[in-house]
């Protein structure tokens, strides 16, 4: 059982993910520099948050061409688990591993605060530990989390349970006010059809220890560990 945390030039949350997996969940984990290409010996690859290449041009637009991304595609094809958080999610979109695109927050401002999420699909290998009715308190921190996808693809994603998290209010209601960035249908996290590549804008690694204000994000990592141990 081994996690990989990929480091792109400009990644910022790599150390946070590394800390949670190594010190909080006590699991083996290694940094993988973006120019490395052999990731076959890992069970789960995490693309962390940050500003890869300064988010210049478009968030994730340049990082997707890093050598390591050429290996992530076949790694995912062979069933390896891939978790893209914030900038990592944007890189997965740019690389075509997940459908849709991220645009600027409708407020045109960066937003860093706690939000509430509803786990829409608790049968994935990333969300098995959650109950359908739970409301998760997990922080966001981004300037471009306004998710868009063509209507026909959205219909298919809804039908196949690919929408994994939606922004909601404290009671679990999906409302306009609880949407921090204008994202389509309050989408906060999605998964590919094969169910092994998850992208989410909120930061679970910032909500895995009570001292920081919430532990609700921990079950994502715990679900991954359980799924791999099976």
């Amino acid at each position, binding site marked *: 059982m081994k996690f990989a945390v990929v480091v792109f030039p*400009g990644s910022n949350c790599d150390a*946070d993910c590394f800390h949670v997996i190594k010190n909080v969940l006590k699991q083996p984990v290694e940094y993988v520099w973006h120019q490395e290409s052999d990731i076959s010996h890992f069970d789960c690859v995490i693309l962390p948050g940050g*500003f890869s290449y300064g988010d210049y041009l478009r968030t994730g637009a340049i990082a997707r061409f890093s050598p390591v991304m050429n290996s992530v595609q076949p790694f995912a094809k062979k069933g390896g688990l891939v978790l893209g958080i914030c900038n990592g999610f944007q890189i997965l979109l740019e690389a075509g591993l997940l459908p849709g695109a991220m645009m600027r927050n409708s407020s045109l*401002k960066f937003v860093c605060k706690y939000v509430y999420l509803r786990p829409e699909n608790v049968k994935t290998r990333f969300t098995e530990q959650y109950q359908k009715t739970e409301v998760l308190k997990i922080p966001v*921190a981004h300037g471009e989390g306004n998710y868009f996808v063509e209507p026909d693809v959205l219909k298919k994603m809804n039908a196949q349970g690919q929408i994994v998290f939606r922004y909601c209010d404290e009671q679990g209601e999906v409302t306009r006010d609880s949407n921090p960035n204008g994202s389509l249908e309050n989408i906060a996290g999605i998964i590919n059809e094969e169910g092994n590549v998850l992208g989410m804008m909120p930061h679970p690694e910032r909500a895995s*220890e009570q001292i*920081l204000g919430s532990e609700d994000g921990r079950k994502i990592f715990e679900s991954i560990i359980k799924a791999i141990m099976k």
Partner: protein
Amino acid sequence: MSSLMMMTEDIITQHGLTLEEYDRIKVFLGREPNFLELGLFSVMWSEHCGYKNSKLELKKLPTTGSGILIKAGEENAGAIDIGDDWCIVFKMESHNHPSAIEPFQGAATGVGGIIRDIFTMGARPIALMDSLRFGRLDEAKTRSLMTGVVSGIAHYGNCIGIPTVGGEVYFEESYSTNPLVNVFCLGIARKKDLVKGKAVGMGNPVFYVGSSTGRDGIHGATFASDELTEKSHEDRPSVQTADPFMEKLLVEACLELFKKPGCVVGVQDMGAAGLTCSTCETASRGNSGIEIDVELVPRRETGMNPYEIMLSESQERMLVIAQKGKEDEVLKTFEKWGLHAALVGHVTDTGRMVVKEKGKVVADVPSKALTDEAPLYKRPAKRPAYLDEVNRLPDLSPEKSNYTNELLQLLSEPNIASKQWVYEQYDHMVMDNTVVLPGSDAAVLRLKEAGKYLAMSSDCNGRYCYLDAYQGTLMAVAECARNVVISGGRPVGLTDCLNFGNPLKPESFWMLQKAIEAIRDACLKFEIPVTGGNVSLYNESPQGAIFPTPTMGVVGLIQKESDITTLSFKEEGDLIFLTGGFGKGLGGSEYLWRVLDIQKGPLPAFDLDEEWKLQKFILKAIQKGWLQSAHDTSEGGLAVALAECAMQGKKGALCELKTSGLRG
């Protein structure tokens, strides 16, 4: 601009130098300086780098203390021992004038500059705070200025991945055309990993790393010493653009390189006065000399002459002095991070700074003359006449007021209302260390590896200092230290940013002098050493000087996790105690100004000893586990303080005041 150009009085004064200063330069050189050499002296002897009008006063500050590892002035920033071979490095800097001209880039480059001061010491930057002051919020110009400054700070801090965990925002008429942007940065290091900014070791190679050099910001350093007159809009192109991505690469590459034994001998960031400052300061600290050839300096524009290259203030650049023989190791590390390191010269033992162009000497100056011989002036000080008039409080006839409406009005005043609109644009959680988020009295961070907790705050009430520079500054230091104490921390160090008017005006200089004396007295009383800081003078505009604003930054060490205290009321039935007694007057208060439209003193009586006893008592009470929460009364006084505790805790409060009030 060849060296043959006739040196005229005009050129000298244009460089911000007096004729007497020019004569001293001739003594140091033993001849007339050429144009480039004059440029070197003009930036190094400017107010911004030479502190020529404030150094004599700054010497009064207490910079020693048990925890001090590196004293203020010795290096880029002071360092304090926090035990178990860990230390913290922190400092505050101002970027007022560039932010007035181009808010976004001015504020962003201010953040970039203070971060470089920290990691150039070998410390990992882990926290930022920003202390901002603008004009009135109902003016469109203020709103656009504030939007630019806040988004500039957000752009830099968020992209480089350092959390902005605290700070303050004030709105006063006096800052309308001269905003204050003071930025604080703190880093952490193991004591053995600290790196000195020294050029030592004959023949050691000198590398230039980071962005290539352009013509931006030339005279940036001296620019900060001119008043903001109408003319200042012409010298606009002197503002630089920020590249936080490049600096993120520099932080990671440098910290990785510093851990490789025997590779790096000294390092210095290129701040104001760019290449000039970094070369002569490292040579001066190393008691050595340095020789560089501008031809080897990577540049962004064509046809740049030595004068432009040496004075350019392009951002995100570092000077790294490596150990001879380790050049490949240095180049390899920088290349890994996509950075180009150019060999631009080497260390000598002549004690001189020599600049060449294609091998030909174009400047040859004793480095200590540039760094240690800036003329220091004892300016005349005179108590401003306005003080008598503004410290005479009209009688406040005790007519019936609607206290509820007045409290609601105060809570909605920009100086008091929540600053969520600001700090939610900053990533204040990255690095997983932020235990107490913005909005409390002090930010609290955990240091995962060191197993320790830090509290930090930045404070100043400019109006108090306008009404009484000495007592106002005492209260600024007290409030900043108090914010750390009521969060459970014992203050271990203070940095400051002294934003004052034109020192050549005796009234402004008097206020600077009084403020520095007050910092000395308060720091001695609270046993807090000053670890360094920044002076920003000439903060004036056509309307006159700004409020004298000595911004404080205090960092405290929290003994154990259970000592961490926040201001929100916790449980129903908890008892509320008011310690330190009721306020002693309404002078200078937000209430007087916002509700009764009176901006007058005298300031309420303030006793340093009482404050010191109060702080010691509160810290002990916290450490003994007696307190559920703690909050200090500042703007808006007791009523606002109670309201804030209740609102943040989503609770109420029932209080009975057995006093006749302050108006009688």
